[in-house]
């Protein structure tokens, strides 16, 4: 229905408005020449200039805009509010304590962003000011790139980059083609051919090109790099001619001209409207599970903070109800304070308490987490093991926000071709009418003479078959889009195929085609080149055959086939069609379908990629009809793709089957090992592929996704044709559940045992049936759930015949299922982009199918095998590190603030801070920041090699296990305990007794009294040491950096305190800390109590750890201990031998 409506709407708009005035099209006057009168009104549309602006700020708006951007983040805003509260009302701590850290964070971020923007400005300027050649009144003049306007005709020379989106008018080549590499746009380094319109290709000097009189109508710019529709109207002959323009005429900004001396082209999209600029849009941000937990913790802490403030405010007013306590004679209020309304007073008191306790949510946590993620991601890029020599590529991190998510993956969705397999095709065999031909051997590029190059498996064919055979080989030689690249060097090594005099090799966007053409060469038919619309073939008799290429019906993933229409030198017109079996067989009217089908199926089972080849000979009338059909479709401005598809559908019919080919796509190195490891790690691996079921299943077996004893459940069209979908689903779920139920009743050991392992195969059509929101809503929801239930109990799932969007749908379905598992999608092609964007973590493989997947991914790795290290090692480490980071940060701030809370009970709830301002400010910034940051960068609880060797360890951290509520509560309780020990330890030393000391020396007999600042300093000293030692106890990997940072920050604290108290600071208007630290250290009991309190604070955590480790060890801990025991035993043995010697 929807489709009908849209066509209707198009029709209506076409009749009402008239094609030319569509809002979404533009008219370009080449060389700014008016069209001849009478054709249409000359409306000069306004277009932007060719300035590229990728920078976000200008010099003037940087500060306000950047501030606004930064304070839009909730955390920053919260700290700003706290800071403002401190500025406005009379608060216990000076605004510096929160202002300074905030200022620091904001400034650092602003500097970073400013620098990045400056770089962007510089890059923009470099691009905008580089000169381009423009044809102006028949002369070539130089112009700055940013001054280019739509309609200018530009001259681009070899190896220059196109300054904007252009339509090719003519080139130095006679055939009006040019070669372009789009490596910088999508990473495809192959040369693509672009075509000039027939009518303009002859105008290839600046004088001639200036005489071109034409207009271009095209759509308004859109970001799709591969789509373009337009029309050129040429007024140079008497009759205006209209020619279609497509993406084969459009040269994109950013692409580079290759192998062509120069071209002339007209500017159609400029500046920010070029397709490259439109593709700048950033991806939506993904958030990791850790970040979600962190936010949940934040909410809890915010609640704690507010309730603390509320409790204290309430208690304050209870306490103050006695006027003698509120205002004793020694501590009167000012007149202003007295007159303030009680509600306002209560409110300001509440705010003051908030300010006092606000350190419980520290600014520095965000900074540290960001730094950890940013710096940590470098270890992924630096990883030597994830470097691929062959490609010369290393892992790329596009978003460092998701490092720890790599340790949480539960589902891996992988593409097959190019991801599991090499995407390095090798021609294996072909089958013509049931006769199988196998190239003799790998020929090192040597052409095998005649039929000696192949083995006939079946009996030699009869004369009728002979004709088919010839046609088949010619079909494969002609039906492709392969280019021949002559005499070129890539990587400095000539790896062309030596052939005749010149060296040449084949390039194509599809590796299958290259494999086929090369395979044909081995069977005796060599495709030479495409010249002047003539395809030249060298046949077995070393004769050159010429075919005129009339039409190419290009490949698309919906049709899954492509065709060419050629005219033989004899004048016969053929249509050769090649495509997937499922798309060819229904269109075949004759040929040995059964034999070929049998062979295709057999090959598919062996994991080969099969293609079927068919032909149709066209009579001249038929061809004329076809030509008209195609031309009409090509000229359409709107819905051209749809019209073309319809035209193709009409043309590719009544085919005669010739045969089939088989191409092998080898598995990637260590793909099976990787998949096995992922399985052991408790990760479910799903293969999503567009390939056919048999091929895909074979790959799955080869890659150990399915084992010999895996029971395969099929959910395919074949089955659903026999039974209704409903029945199949219910039957499968019953099978799975019966087994499952039986298992729980049986011994538990079976769980790990290999008794029954289910693998599910589902195809695209069935999947869409399952997903379709059915007529009876209740029933369809049921389907989805049933399906999920089956999937959950299968260790491996294979989805074949998937459209790109379906891949994303599957990922979404799993993501939304009730357990909300963490998903990872990995793929290399453009068809995987949707699932890469959809999954929690998207990984791109730097494969052969271009760079789109890499560009859209969160991480990119050269090979599939690197996924193992990425997840099992890096993911595991990052998860451990960040979870400790988060927990530790909350812990240390509980320790920090809780004594302050307790102190309120002893200072009349007057918001008196326990610690000095400097301590309040620097605690999180410098005294305790670096150890945890470096811990979170280099901690390794287990060696890398063990992690890789033993994938089971990955299960230990599954389901966010280190950040669950019990752990969080444990840390918080520990923090509260430490705070209580520290506070009351100091309290009992001070309370009611003289905590006094004998000053510098006994002899001076000076009895010192310690005041409240000494009290706070004592608590603070114990706090800094406890918190740092706690981290030291958690560190399992002590490199020199850890030693340096941990002991260094303790030393820094002591040195700072000595300095801070050592001088009367002239800029301070209070000297409360003067000599406090020194006096404290000169007192014996202070030392004793510091040691005691640190010990008492750390004790429970150590005991808990040791007992848990002994009684309920996790696998990780067992392995750690195993390692330790070995060392221990060795030491014991050593010692005993020593003692023996001694005796």
């Amino acid at each position, binding site marked *: 229905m929807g489709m009908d409506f849209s066509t209707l709407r198009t029709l209506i708009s076409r009749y009402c408005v008239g094609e030319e005035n569509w809002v979404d099209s533009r008219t370009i006057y080449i060389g700014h020449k008016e069209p001849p009168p009478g054709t249409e009104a000359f409306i000069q549309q306004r277009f932007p200039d060719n300035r590229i602006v*990728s920078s976000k700020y200008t010099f003037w708006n940087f500060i306000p805009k950047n501030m606004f951007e930064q304070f839009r983040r909730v955390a920053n805003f919260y700290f700003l509010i706290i800071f403002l509260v401190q500025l406005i009302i009379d608060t216990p701590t000076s605004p510096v304590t929160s202002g300074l850290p905030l200022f620091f964070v904001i400034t650092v971020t602003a500097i970073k962003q400013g620098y990045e923007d400056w770089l*962007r400005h510089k890059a923009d300027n470099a691009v905008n000011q580089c000169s381009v050649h423009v044809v102006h009144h028949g002369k070539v003049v130089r112009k700055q790139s940013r001054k280019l306007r739509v309609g200018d005709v530009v001259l681009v020379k070899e190896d220059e980059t196109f300054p904007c989106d252009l339509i090719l008018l003519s080139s130095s080549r006679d055939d009006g083609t040019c070669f372009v590499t789009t*490596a*910088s746009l999508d990473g495809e380094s192959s040369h693509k051919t672009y075509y000039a319109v027939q009518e303009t290709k002859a105008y290839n000097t600046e004088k001639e090109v200036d005489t071109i009189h034409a207009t271009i109508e095209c759509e308004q710019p859109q970001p799709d790099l591969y789509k373009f529709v337009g029309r050129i109207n040429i007024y140079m002959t008497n009759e205006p001619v209209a020619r279609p323009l497509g993406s084969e005429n459009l040269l994109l900004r950013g692409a580079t001209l290759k192998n062509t001396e120069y071209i002339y082209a007209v500017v159609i999209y400029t500046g920010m409207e070029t397709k*490259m600029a439109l593709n700048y849009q*950033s991806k939506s941000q993904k958030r990791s599970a850790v970040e979600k937990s962190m936010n949940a913790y934040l909410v809890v802490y915010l609640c704690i903070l507010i309730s603390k403030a509320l409790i204290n405010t309430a208690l304050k007013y209870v306490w103050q109800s006695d006027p003698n*306590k509120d205002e*004793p*004679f*020694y*501590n*009167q*209020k*000012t*007149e202003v304070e007295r007159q303030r309304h009680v509600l306002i007073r209560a409110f300001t008191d509440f705010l003051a308490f908030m300010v006092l306790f606000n350190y419980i949510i520290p600014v520095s946590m965000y900074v540290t987490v*960001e730094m950890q993620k940013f710096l940590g991601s470098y*270890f992924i890029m630096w990883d030597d093991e994830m470097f691929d020599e062959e490609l*010369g590529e290393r892992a790329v*991190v596009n*978003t*460092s926000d998701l490092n720890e998510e790599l340790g949480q993956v539960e589902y891996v969705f992988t593409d097959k071709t190019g991801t599991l397999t090499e995407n390095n095709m090798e021609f294996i065999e072909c089958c013509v009418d049931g006769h199988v031909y196998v190239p003799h051997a790998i020929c090192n590029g040597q052409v095998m003479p005649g039929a000696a190059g192949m083995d006939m498996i079946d009996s030699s064919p009869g004369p009728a078959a002979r004709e088919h055979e010839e046609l088949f080989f010619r079909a494969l030689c002609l039906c492709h889009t392969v280019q021949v690249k002559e005499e070129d060097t890539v990587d400095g090594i000539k790896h062309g195929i030596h052939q005749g005099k010149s060296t040449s090799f084949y390039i194509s966007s599809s590796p299958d085609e290259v494999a086929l053409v090369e395979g044909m060469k081995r069977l005796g038919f060599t495709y030479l080149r495409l010249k002047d619309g003539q395809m030249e073939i060298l046949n077995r008799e070393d004769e050159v055959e010429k075919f005129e290429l009339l039409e190419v019906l290009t490949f698309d993933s919906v049709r899954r086939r492509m065709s060419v229409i050629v005219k033989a030198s004899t004048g016969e017109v053929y249509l050769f069609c090649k495509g997937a079996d499922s798309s060819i067989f229904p269109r075949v009217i004759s040929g040995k379908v059964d034999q070929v089908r049998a062979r295709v199926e057999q090959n598919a089972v062996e994991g080969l990629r099969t293609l079927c080849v068919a032909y149709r000979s066209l009579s001249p009338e038929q061809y004329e009809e076809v030509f008209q059909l195609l031309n009409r479709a090509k000229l359409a401005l709107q819905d051209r793709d749809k019209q073309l598809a319809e035209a193709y559908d009409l043309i590719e019919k009544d085919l005669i089957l010739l045969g089939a080919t088989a191409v092998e796509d080898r598995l990637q190195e260590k793909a099976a090992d990787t998949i096995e490891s992922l399985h052991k790690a408790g990760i479910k691996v799903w293969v999503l592929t567009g390939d056919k079921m048999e091929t895909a299943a074979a790959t799955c077996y080869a890659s150990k996704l399915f084992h010999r004893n895996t029971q395969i459940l099929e959910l395919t069209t074949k089955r659903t044709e026999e039974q209704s979908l409903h029945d199949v689903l219910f039957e499968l779920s019953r099978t799975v559940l019966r087994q499952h139920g039986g298992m729980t009743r049986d011994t538990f050991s079976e769980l790990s045992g290999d008794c029954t392992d289910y693998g599910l195969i589902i195809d695209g059509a069935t999947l869409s049936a399952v997903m379709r929101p059915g007529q009876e809503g209740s029933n369809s929801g049921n389907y989805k759930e049933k399906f999920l239930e089956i999937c959950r109990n299968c260790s491996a799932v294979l989805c074949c015949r998937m459209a790109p969007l379906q891949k994303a749908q599957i990922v979404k379905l799993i993501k939304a299922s009730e357990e909300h598992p963490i998903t990872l999608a990995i793929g290399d092609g453009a068809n995987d982009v949707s699932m890469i964007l959809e999954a929690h973590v998207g990984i791109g493989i730097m494969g052969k199918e271009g*760079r789109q997947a890499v*560009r859209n991914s969160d991480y990119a790795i050269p090979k599939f095998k690197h996924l193992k290290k990425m997840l099992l090692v890096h993911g595991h480490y990052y998860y451990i590190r960040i979870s400790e980071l988060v927990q530790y940060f909350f812990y240390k701030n509980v320790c920090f603030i809780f004594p302050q809370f307790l102190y309120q009970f*002893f200072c*009349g709830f*007057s918001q008196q801070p326990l610690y000095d301002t400097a301590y309040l400010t620097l605690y999180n910034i410098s005294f305790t920041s670096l150890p945890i940051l470096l811990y979170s960068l280099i901690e390794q609880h287990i060696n890398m090699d063990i992690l890789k*060797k*033993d994938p089971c360890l990955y299960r230990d951290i599954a389901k966010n296990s280190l950040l669950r509520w019990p752990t969080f509560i444990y840390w918080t309780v520990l923090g509260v305990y430490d705070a209580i020990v520290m506070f009351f330890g100091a309290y009992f030393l*001070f309370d009611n007794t*003289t*905590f*006094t000391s*004998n*000053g510098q020396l006994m002899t001076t007999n*000076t009895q010192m*009294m310690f005041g*409240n600042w*000494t009290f706070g300093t004592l608590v603070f000293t114990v706090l800094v040491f406890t918190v740092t030692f706690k981290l030291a106890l958690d560190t399992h990997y002590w*490199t020199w*950096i*850890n030693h340096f940072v941990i002991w260094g920050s303790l030393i820094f604290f002591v040195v700072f305190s000595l300095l801070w108290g050592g001088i*009367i600071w002239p800029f301070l*208007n209070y*000297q*409360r800390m*003067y*000599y406090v630290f020194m006096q404290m250290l000169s007192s014996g009991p202070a030392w*004793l*109590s510091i040691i*005691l309190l640190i*010990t008492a604070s750390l004790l429970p955590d150590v005991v808990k750890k*040791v007992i848990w*480790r*002994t009684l309920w060890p996790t*696998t990780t801990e067992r*392995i750690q*201990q*195993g390692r*330790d*025991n070995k060392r221990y035993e060795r030491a014991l043995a050593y010692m005993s031998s020593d003692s023996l010697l001694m005796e």
Partner: protein
Amino acid sequence: MMASSYNAKEEDGHHSGASSGTGLSKNKKPDNTAFKQQRLPAWQPILTAGSVLPAFFVIGLIFIPIGIGLYVTSNNIKEFEIDYTGVSSDSPCYNCAKNFTWNTTEPCVCTVNFTLLQPFESNVFMYYGLSNFYQNHRRYVKSRDDRQLNGDLSALTDPSKECEPYRKSGDVSIAPCGAIANSLFNDTLVLYYVDSNNSKIEVPLVKKGIAWWTDKHVKFRNPAGNSNLTLAFRDTAKPVNWAKPVYELDPSDPDNNGFINEDFIVWMRTAALPTFRKLYRIIQKKSGTTPTLPNGNYMLNITYNYPVLSFDGRKRMILSTISWMGGKNPFLGIAYITVGSICFFLGVVLLIIHHKYDNRNTSADIPS
């Protein structure tokens, strides 16, 4: 981190060719350094029952003796405390406490008698103690001007705003300003020894050396430029509650007068908790074998100036000897003994656990 992803694209777009150039592929190979490959040499300790056990026993064995030592030392310290607030009617200071008014010219004097059962050897320290007195109240703590106390002349005549409402008396600024200074403890305590023939011998009380050396010599300074304190403070008013101006705190000794008066300095160091003691005087040990304070009867003569009853406070006088670890403080000793015993006990528990479970675990270890 959005920026980094943006940058990646940026590079794709602008510096085309350069990054995709095949010639650079060698440069992309990561450096094989220990740091970058996360293979820095490291010490990898683990907390297991086996490794922690000795530490527990060691801690226990060290802490318990320390604790015992501390406890014994603390118990050897002699301390005498007497409350002279005068709450109950039979208290000698009852009348002074009850009839207290500000601005009396006639000071109220009361005398408390007490007996020391044991002689106090070595130096004896005399403290006054206040209870329920919130010296750590925020409004109170900040109500001072350290610049003024450091002798800053501008701050002398224009004290910090923090001193409100004790900043100015009329138009004249107060020196020393603020609530802390204003509420200076001003009871005068005099101690007499009543010997066997009932004659009173005044115990000599040393009033210097009771404040931190740095406070007295660096942090607190009289206004510079004028050796005559009366002149130095001429533009200032005395704190409201004070009977006499700051330059008459100790007219007898110019080194103990004005801001550097040690009683004043001691008071200015605000106490941490609402119940506190402050050092008042030192009773120096006499030469020879006679104890500083022999056992017997004493008389404490109090000039009762300081009102505490209004906020339900208490005043005490404390006499104490000290040891190497300061005054009497049983807490530290007890705490050390407790923590030491807990460590020892845990050590034993862990030993049992270690023997019972650890071997089993290691035998069931994963064979890696």
